């Protein structure tokens, strides 16, 4: 009996330990390394930064290593306006597009949740299906439409809405279109989940008591859907701030979003410490929303027992 209990204990421990260790090694440790390299200096070497930590050097090596750390990369980030503008642009685009997503996604989710029961699974499927096709393909599809000799200009000139082809691509408008297009399911699905769970007798009660429809929406529907609003907002806002592919393919070259700046520092300038410092400060910027999101997930997945 005792051995069985022991074995069970070990089995249970393994269930926790295996994914725990995996995430520890491949998710948490890398962040510590990023933090460390953001405090290093660029060097013409392989790897292109110094100091390089050497386990063999022992305690003395560690002391020397710490002495060589510097905040130069962070000083550069705060002194050069390029980085600051980049952060501000990312936050601005993320904020505006999240609001737009909410404004577009809410009526869609509401329409889905109010549709007849038998229609709902196909509707959910219809919203999710494009999300299964490649993200890159969906952005690329928009290049076909938005480019100078693309379909949008073609249609608009034929309708005589514009005289000369307009430059839709390489603009903030194109970035917004790409973001709205790619992130819409992430906004609609949490909203739908919240609206669909809602008890409809509440709406009936409000109507019976003479409450006008808009007031019912404002006093009953909206407050009850707030968890969905929060989930959708966070699920969109956080990744959009660090978005790379959409601004890179659809956006212009004037002001880069922070994800592009990180990419350029890393791949073009090969400045690993600055790229790491951007990553660290971006993570710092997003820490509060990420923690909010974690709380929300914990409550919805673990609290419902």
């Amino acid at each position, binding site marked *: 009996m005792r051995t069985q209990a022991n074995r*069970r204990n070990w089995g*249970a421990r393994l*269930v*926790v330990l*295996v*994914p*725990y260790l*995996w*995430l520890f090694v*491949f*998710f948490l*440790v890398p962040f510590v*390394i*990023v933090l460390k*390299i953001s405090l290093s200096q660029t060097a013409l070497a392989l790897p292109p930064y110094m100091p390089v*930590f050497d386990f063999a050097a022992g305690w003395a090596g560690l002391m020397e290593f710490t002495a060589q750390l510097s905040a130069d990369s962070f000083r550069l980030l705060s002194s050069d306006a390029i980085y600051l503008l980049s952060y501000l642009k990312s936050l601005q685009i993320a904020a505006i597009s999240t609001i737009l997503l909410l404004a577009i996604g809410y*009526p869609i989710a509401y*329409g889905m949740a*109010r*549709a*007849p029961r038998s229609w709902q699974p196909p509707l959910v*499927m219809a*919203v999710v299906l*494009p999300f*299964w096709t*490649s*993200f*890159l*393909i*969906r952005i*690329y599809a*928009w290049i*076909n439409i938005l*480019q100078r*000799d693309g*379909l949008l200009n*073609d249609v608009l000139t034929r309708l005589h809405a514009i005289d000369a082809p307009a430059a839709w691509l390489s603009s903030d408008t194109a970035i917004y279109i790409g973001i709205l297009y790619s992130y819409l399911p992430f906004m*609609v699905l949490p909203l739908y989940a919240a609206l669909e769970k809602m008890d*409809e007798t509440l*709406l009936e009660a409000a109507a019976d008591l003479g409450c006008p429809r808009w007031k019912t929406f404002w006093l009953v529907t909206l407050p009850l859907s707030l968890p969905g609003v929060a989930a959708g907002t966070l699920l969109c806002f*956080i*990744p959009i701030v*660090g978005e*790379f592919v959409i601004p890179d393919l659809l956006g212009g070259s004037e002001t880069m979003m922070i994800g592009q700046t*990180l*990419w350029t520092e*890393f*791949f073009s300038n090969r400045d*690993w410490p600055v*790229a790491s410092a951007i*990553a660290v400060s*971006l993570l710092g910027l997003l820490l509060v929303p*990420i923690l909010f*999101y*974690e709380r929300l*997930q*914990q409550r919805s*997945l*673990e609290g419902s*027992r």
Partner: protein
Amino acid sequence: MKRGASSFNIISAVLGLAFLYLPITILVIYSFNASRLVTIWGGWSLEWYRELLRDDAVLQAAWISLRVAVLSASAATVLGTLAAVALTRMGRFRGRLLFSGMVYAPLVIPEVITGLSLLLLFVALNADRGFWTIVIAHTTLTMCFVAVIVQSRLVSFDRSLEEAAMDLGCPPVKTFLTITLRLIAPAIAAGWMLAFSLSLDDLVIASFTTGPGATTLPIRIYSEVRLGVKPEINAVCTIMIAIVAVGTIAASLIAKSGTARRDRAALGAQV
């Protein structure tokens, strides 16, 4: 209250769906365009598909992507399911908060950060970058998606089945294998498919963690797309869309026949 088929609801749903499907539909149609220009319709043609079959670089990239996706999705499904079980069935254990934090964070953390941090880890470990580093990176990202899907299934079903089995003396491992695993099987399958498609789709993390000789399909497509629209790319994309559509429809049919079988079984039990 009537289940509100108000015109506003219908219009917003229809417009929303049109917005979602129109660009993809246009892309698919133009992959069959005989003309090289997007604005000129030159008649139906399979020319770009033929050209594609001759393009060894794209075919090789597709093969690498496919292998990465199968391997990482399978590893992620095992790890993600274990993580979900750990979070729902193991009660409190030391470091639980950190664990759940590590499971949920990758879902929202921008990919550039995850990619950069994993690359720096591989450099610090002095690992050869290429096929396997992409597999590890994708496993790490997608296991969290699997964990969330399986977890939502684990919390929603009736625990009394498991408890009944254990009360009757069924050992926990056997209970898990014969009862729990069967009940969460649809979620595990859905998790695998999501992990597979996320891996097949990923550009950013693969770009950071790749090495010589391991160019995945998205990396290849990205480098072509940066140079402008090409009909061959439309053809690649159409094939990928077709695979996804067939896969999704097949999966939903399998799920449907699964529930039908379960309903029949329940009916049989009543009779």
